[in-house]
């Protein structure tokens, strides 16, 4: 297993946000995490990236215990996150946003990676020297994904990549996610758009008030009556 989370618990002050999370992701898998607002999806990703400390439990990455590792060291190991709401550096240029995505890769062949990102998201080339803040929401999302890919992640954490985007762009983002998986990147996808996420996922986890309540194949979850009723609005 590339990522193994066991009995992970997390608190914001005295409020418990995650309770005994068990998640395992194999190399090359595309795994979806769905659930209502406030279920703890973003918190789980924050714990995985190390920007939110775990209260108990362990996170193992590639067999190594990373529960107490600093965020920057996790990036160096190969965990990159595209945070909710994109979080690009607005005043910095598109180029600088991408360059900083490869911050932990000393002596990296950044030019080759830039070319790869431009091939994947051609729109970025036309905006190359513009401040990222001037990009549209969809363009910023693509930039945020490209920035995370600049780290050459072995595990890509995507937090609500379709949030606030027009349907056409949502479809494009999901196609990108599928392409990344096809390219061999392991993806952990958090989405409120559960139907679309589960449709492309190998497996899925359903989170409810900080606990994993159901886990199954993506297709099976789509067909599951409980999931349909609670999250798919069917």
């Amino acid at each position: 297993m590339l990522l193994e989370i066991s009995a992970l618990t997390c608190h914001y002050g005295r409020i418990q946000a995650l309770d005994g999370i068990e998640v395992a992701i194999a190399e090359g898998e595309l795994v979806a995490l769905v659930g209502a607002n406030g279920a703890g999806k973003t918190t789980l990703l924050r714990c995985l990236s190390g920007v939110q400390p775990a209260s108990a439990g362990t996170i193992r990455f590639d067999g190594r215990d990373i529960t107490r590792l600093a965020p920057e060291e996790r990036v160096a190991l190969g965990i990159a996150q595209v945070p909710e709401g994109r979080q690009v550096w607005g005043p910095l240029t598109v180029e600088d946003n991408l360059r900083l995505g490869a911050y932990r890769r000393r002596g990296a062949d950044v030019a080759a990676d830039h070319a790869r990102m431009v091939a994947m998201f051609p729109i970025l080339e036309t905006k190359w020297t513009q401040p990222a803040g001037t990009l549209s929401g969809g363009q910023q999302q693509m930039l945020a994904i490209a920035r995370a890919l600049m780290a050459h992640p072995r595990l890509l954490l995507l937090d609500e990549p379709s949030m606030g985007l027009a349907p056409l762009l949502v479809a494009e983002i999901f196609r990108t996610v599928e392409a990344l998986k096809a390219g061999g990147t392991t993806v952990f996808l958090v989405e409120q758009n559960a139907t679309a996420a589960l449709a492309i996922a190998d497996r899925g986890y359903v989170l409810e008030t900080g606990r994993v309540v159901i886990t199954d194949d993506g297709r099976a979850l789509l067909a599951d009556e409980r999931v349909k009723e609670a999250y798919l609005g069917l």
Partner: protein
Amino acid sequence: MFAAFLQYLFAGLTSGAIYALAGLGFAIIFNASHVINFAQGEFIMIGGMATTALVAAGTPLPLAIVLAILITMAVGMALEKFAVEPARGADVTAIIIITIGASIFLRGAAQVVWDKEFHSLPAFSGETPLDVAGATLTPQSLWVVGVSVAMIVLLWWFFNRTLFGKAMLATSYNRLAAQLAGVAVKKVLLASFALSAMLGAVGGIVMTPITFTNYEVGIMLGLKGFSAAVLGGLGNGMGAIVGGLIVGIAEALAAGYLSSAYKDAIAFVIILLVLFFMPNGLFGKRGSERV
């Protein structure tokens, strides 16, 4: 008439350059941590005092300057490491109060390590004043302005041309994104204190031949630098430079045309007016932000 005006202008530009460096110091730390470091003035004091002490002990001036800058940077980093970092997670106001405490501590330590006397340094390249359209300009004033410009260029290069500088900027724009990209935010914080200390020390050293230094000079210089930073818009580098020059020139003109008794009041009158009419400063961004 004009000669007198020019004379005041030179004086204002000279002190304005020092305020600009102090203002930049405030801006760099504020951007990295949202903390207003009220020990910024003490960096100016330590830079000057350390140099005078080293020179008095027989160290050649250039070596004394380098050592004093390094000492001040070490003090700045120690301040971050032992006073600010342990309070991480505390309210920003609490950390600001910690820096006020640190400034009092540093003033006390300076009295113990050095003394309470005023000290000076020889001017770097002689005392022969230049005559410019009837006004006199001392070579040391040129040093102050020239070195300040050099520091500003160096800073611009650091923040726009080096990866670590850009990472520091990125941290100030969006801390979470910087962490997720693998920027060690602790190092950024440490570097911001080192950089601010360096700016303060350099300012303190080049001004010492003109204004002298003692353990208390940091109080007023720190407040003037803070006024410069607020006037320009807290966190804005260009604003801090312009703010510093405005404060410096305004107080020199006030001292010349009104009375030197009001010299120090000018900076604070300016800061009050700014806070009344332009709470975000001259170059500051609006309080609200698009999300």
